[in-house]
């Protein structure tokens, strides 16, 4: 049937699903929201500048209001005081939306393993692509955006509600050391008495 229609109409008409067409359009028209807090932000600017030219991949339109964006690029370390802000900005972005965690600090806290620095933003907001490096080269960020485009083309939807079904996390949760600390505190173990507790 499809081949007969193709024969009839030639190259003038392409047949596809609405889902795939919407995802294709979406993947090539990303609007990033730069959440740049540290040196990764400099590489992010460099990626968008003329030398590396992010517009070749259709995602050069950076907007500083989350309401116009569908891709959040978290570039740099995020401290605990910043998490409510980060979560609020994420909630303000309209669906469908994606998140790139750029650099070692955003992915895991990096070298800043202190009371103030969050050990990976994926503990509090969903993350689609992680970019390692300290800071990553612009090529790495471009590669991450290309990977994200592949992901959008495979998992994107024409109405974003399907995200509920497709990207709910399942499987075993990773062990959380801080949860162990909270359990110990609940059980009345005085942490003050253990100055060299290996958990700390």
């Amino acid at each position: 049937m499809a081949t007969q229609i193709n024969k009839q109409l030639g190259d003038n008409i392409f047949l596809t699903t609405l889902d795939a067409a919407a995802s294709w359009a979406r993947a090539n028209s990303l609007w990033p929201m730069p959440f740049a807090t540290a040196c990764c932000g400099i590489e992010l600017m460099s990626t968008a500048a003329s030398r590396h030219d992010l517009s070749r991949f259709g995602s050069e339109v950076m907007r500083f209001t989350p309401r116009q964006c569908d891709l959040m690029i978290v570039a740099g370390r995020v401290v605990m005081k910043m998490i409510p802000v980060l979560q609020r900005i994420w909630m303000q972005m309209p669906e469908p939306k994606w998140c790139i965690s750029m650099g070692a600090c955003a992915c895991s806290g990096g070298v800043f393993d202190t009371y103030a620095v969050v050990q990976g933003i994926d503990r509090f907001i969903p993350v689609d692509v992680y970019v390692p490096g300290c800071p990553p080269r612009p090529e790495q960020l471009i590669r991450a955006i290309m990977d994200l485009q592949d992901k959008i083309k495979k998992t994107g939807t024409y109405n974003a509600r399907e995200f509920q079904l497709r990207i709910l996390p399942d499987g075993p949760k990773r062990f959380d050391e801080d949860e162990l600390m909270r359990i110990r505190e609940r059980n009345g173990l005085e942490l003050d008495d253990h100055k060299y507790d290996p958990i700390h």
Partner: protein
Amino acid sequence: MTESAESDWKQVLEKALPSANLRFSEFRNQQRVDVPASGIVAALTALRDAGMDQLCDLTAVDLLEYPGATDRFEVVYLLLNTTSGQRLTVRTHLNEPDLKIPSAVPIWFGADWLEREVYDMYGIVFEGHPNFKRLLLPDAFESFPMRKDYPVKGRGERHNFPIITRAES
């Protein structure tokens, strides 16, 4: 620094706090004086009036397990005479549970944020401060992270937030 200038502020302090136990010391040509916490306002006011017109820094040290130390906390005032270039370190010691000291804001207004930072990091309360609250950390923060008995990785504060999943956002 001349001998006369040095004896000047020593006389000023001894006149301002006649019965207090002042301890003068010197470290690599830096003049230091230890003042009891009860007399800190009188000492700082007298020094300010005697020409020590700039408060360069106000900070604290936690002397937990420090060799030779007898008190837990040390509040440090670094003073400068902008006319003569003379510098002076004023120190006072505090112990738990009485971590209260009169504020230096009425003497130098620049002590405002410095005292709030010291409270933020060490939990030392400056009485009489016009706007006394945390400076850097969130108001809900309960610990004082620069204390030596506070773990570097905190006590779970950095992970005490709601987790937003894909389905919720």
